[in-house]
């Protein structure tokens, strides 16, 4: 009978131990993933643009900072500053994330009344990024629509958002 009691105690002790182990496992699973963050490196700049008096056109700024033009827009040899927007993402290594871009953005003449629209935002990588070593750079371009005889001058937007979210 003493042996039976001893065995019973042993079973309870073992069970107690196993219970403690289960709690320890749960705590180990509570490791928090490195938060994802995004920091801007470079603003978007379409550079210098010329447009005809009677025909408008577009400037397509790709994520690699090259420009193409359509219709009545020409891109002068003096380019000015041309750059896609650049950002650095940091977070948990090998995690993927989605990239959210604006749909449209208004650029306003320094005098305050004339505007142009930037649309068709594109990024590289497109839509989804991968934090290979916990970090990745992304670049963002867009298409600028220029009206015929668009008033000469410098046009600037307010801020626009680029958001990254873990998948």
């Amino acid at each position, binding site marked *: 009978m003493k042996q039976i009691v001893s065995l019973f105690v042993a079973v309870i002790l073992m069970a107690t131990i196993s219970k403690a182990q289960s709690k320890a496992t749960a705590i180990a699973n509570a490791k928090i993933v490195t938060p994802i963050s995004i920091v801007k490196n470079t603003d978007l*700049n379409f550079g210098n643009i010329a447009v005809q008096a009677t025909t408008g056109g577009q400037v397509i700024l790709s994520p690699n900072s090259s420009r193409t033009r359509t219709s009545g827009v020409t891109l002068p040899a003096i380019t000015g500053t041309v750059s896609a927007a650049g950002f650095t993402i940091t977070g948990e290594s090998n995690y993927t994330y989605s990239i959210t871009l604006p749909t449209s953005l208004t650029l306003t003449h320094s005098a305050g009344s004339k505007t142009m629209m930037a649309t068709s935002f594109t990024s590289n990588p497109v839509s989804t990024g991968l934090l290979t070593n916990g970090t990745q750079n992304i670049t963002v371009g867009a298409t600028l629509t220029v009206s015929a005889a668009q008033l000469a001058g410098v046009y600037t937007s307010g801020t626009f958002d680029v958001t990254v979210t873990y998948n």
Partner: protein
Amino acid sequence: MFKTQKSKVIMPNAQYSKQFDVFDINNIQKPLNIIQMKKILILLITVVGFVINSTAQSTATATATATVITPITISKNSDMSFGNVSVQSGTGGSVILAPNGTRTRTAGVTLPAVTGSVSAASFTVNGEGSYTYDISLPSTVTLTHSGGVQTMAANSFISNPSGTGQLASGSQNIAVGATLTVSAGQLSGVYTSTTFNVTVNYN
């Protein structure tokens, strides 16, 4: 079996019943079975999940800038005029009018001392300071006698500056000359062209 056994062993995690002075195995606090442990794990994972969600998104802001440059324009100051030309009856020739307004002649053409009005065409280009631009000239222009039948052709148009200009301070004058071909025995009279285009484009 346990209900009839008196024992001095105090068992951990067991309730001791004073009323019956026996152990009731049903009241022993049992270790968590596997289902209960899973529930706790799920609960913990859920809590962790909320923590992850709260840090799973980040937003940065940027601005966009573009510069529209002053449109380029061109306006004519003076028309092209080859002046007075004479030609032999048996041999034709040409008159080469340089952008600087001087003339040279070839073959059967001579240039009389009474020159008449001689001038290269002249234009003023305006636009964004220091920018460069391309100059496009016609290839051939036909000059027609006032009588309406006889013609001469002007070609080899040339400009100064040639090919590309630069708007050092937002403005530049350009001059355009050409070569007029005169046939032997060309009918005397005044020959006039219709308008021709000189086009400038930012490059």
